[in-house]
């Protein structure tokens, strides 16, 4: 990968824009095409590429671009390579959620063996008069919950241990 990864219909392509006077060359997975994009206002653009020219509409939200071309809408995801790598690493490894401060377990919101989604609340703790929910940082299966409701723990104690979910079980 040496350019910007873009994803369209589940396929990721590596795109390198090379600027030249009057436009740019696009190197897509090694193939090079000359392109030019002129603004016509209000999200309307004239796109010239590969010797052809047409009008397209482009809208962007976050890392998604929507391109309307010949009556069809293409949704292009601008892939954040760093985020992809971190997610892959998280999916591969399980990990332990540690207590940010000493305290007491108020409520256990999950159970051992359950598959949890990213962001799911697992356990609620209280310390220094603050109630804090501990969320799953990524999907996984709950392997261990060492402390039950009402039990107290030290800073850095394991509150929940997650293990990776086998690939075929991954809810899509």
């Amino acid at each position, binding site marked *: 990968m040496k350019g910007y990864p873009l994803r369209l219909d589940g396929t990721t392509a590596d795109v390198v824009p090379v600027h030249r006077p009057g436009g740019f060359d696009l190197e897509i997975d090694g193939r090079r095409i000359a392109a030019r994009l002129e603004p016509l206002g209000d999200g309307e653009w004239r796109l010239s590429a590969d010797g052809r020219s047409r009008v397209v509409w482009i809208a962007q939200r*976050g890392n998604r671009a929507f391109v309307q071309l010949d009556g069809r809408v293409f949704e292009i995801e601008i892939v*954040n390579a760093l985020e992809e790598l971190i997610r892959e690493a998280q999916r591969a490894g399980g990990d332990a959620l540690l207590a*940010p401060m000493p305290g007491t377990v108020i409520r256990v919101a999950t159970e051992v063996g359950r598959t949890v989604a*990213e*962001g799911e609340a697992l356990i609620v703790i209280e*310390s220094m*008069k*603050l109630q804090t929910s501990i969320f799953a940082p990524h999907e996984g299966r709950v392997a261990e919950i060492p402390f039950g409701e009402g039990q107290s723990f030290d800073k850095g104690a394991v509150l929940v241990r997650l293990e990776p979910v086998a690939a075929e079980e991954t809810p899509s």
Partner: protein
Amino acid sequence: VMRRIRSHVDVRSPAFLANREKNLERVREFRERQEEARFSRPRRDLDRLARQGKLFVRERIEKLLDPGTPFLELSSLAACTEYDGEAKGASSVVGIGIVSGREVVVRADDPSIKGGAWYPLTVKKIVRALDVAIENRLPMIHVCDSAGGFLPLQADVFPDRYLAGRIFRNQSILSKMRVPQLSLVFGRCTAGGAYIPSLSDYSVIQRGNGAIFLGGPPLVKAATGEVVDAEALGGADLHTRVSGVADYAANSEEEAILLGREIVSQWEKPRKTWVERRDAEPPYYDPEELYGIVPADVKVQFDMREVIARIVDGSLFHEYQPDYGTTLVCGFAWIWGVRVGILANDGVLFNDSSLKGAHFMELCNHNRTPLVFLQNITGYMVGREAESKGICKDGAKMIMIQSTSDVPKFTIMCNRSFGAGNYGMCGRAFDSRFLFSWPNHQIGVMGPEQAADVLADVKIQQLEREGVKLSKEEVDKIRLPILESYEREISAYYATSHLWDDGIIDPVDTRNVLGLSIHAALSAPFGEPGTGVLRL
């Protein structure tokens, strides 16, 4: 190339909906109180102004500002808990607005309340307005229409270092900095008040209502026996033709305001301090969702990344040291296209979180990156473990670096600010250029329960030494008044009433308020680099 915060908020969950309901209620109360402070006046006072041919203070400001531009009002609820609620907005309106294309601080007396007399908190608000002008190098426009100091409370208006004299001292300092001031005189400026137009670089005085004198007609008669009317003693024609105390005379307020706008258009436009910028974009996540994120119960902790995601451009956030000192979230983001360094509490401050905060602020100082503090802090960690690791010296490092930072600082009080955490996180004493609070916010040296326990314990031990044993009822009798006074004094309204902040804001407006504040602050250069001795 920056990653976006991944929100974990479920907008359909019962907790979200309950929080939303509570926070909408809080914002509704705030809006009602603000509306009341801004516009509700007894009929007879409004009639009196109309008879005198005077515009209401808000109309004056509206005509002064460039049409369609934002006005960042400061301390709209000043004095809301004092003087039986009489001095609405502390009888004055202060804010940052655009006049003839220039950012200026506008400060206007409100003659619809006791003739615009200055209460102690009015003076505090005026001094703060001038401090804002000095700290940010912003020109200032004074709209003068005040009866003078509120005499029944003169001891709290006149003599001390930060009381009325400070207004004139600050005006002089601002002028020395080559930052211009304009006074529009729409009422009597008597005694000390006479110095406001006299110390302004430019002044316009309205024929009829406007007058400037050290002693008004009654005082002159008492002192010298001379009988003279206000117009002859200090009116527009006397001062613009004979004495030279004022520069221009105008026949009406509207004429004076237009003349004032023309004067401002002659002023130099400040060059903004250079900071890293990029094209602004709205947050990816809807700021309205803040209502469901901020808990109904202030004791419930919440993830500050969810708040950051609803303030910064594109919800993009480069988190610094994500796995170290996790109770303090630090990182870089963009607000209205300006790069900022954010420090946000996600729990109690430990040794590691304090060190991380100090280190991150140093990075921002070296990187010319303004600092934004999002406070939700119950304090630094207590107990034997923290003390033996030196929590005092690590907290001190954070305070030292923060106090001596040369980049501008901005503080938002998001939920709670208790104890020394307030200091480390740039509370009011630490010269944030601007500090705003959300309506749910609470502030105090400790929570009401803890304070009641501590003070009751002291009393019980004292009595036990004298051989008196207290019953539970007697202990409650000691605790109750402490609880009540703490509950009253920790509220955001009490805080804003006493100008411990620059105003309460709707959480949804945080991004825009920060954007305007940062833009205004960039009118001044950054401070000198360097810091004090760090206890390593």
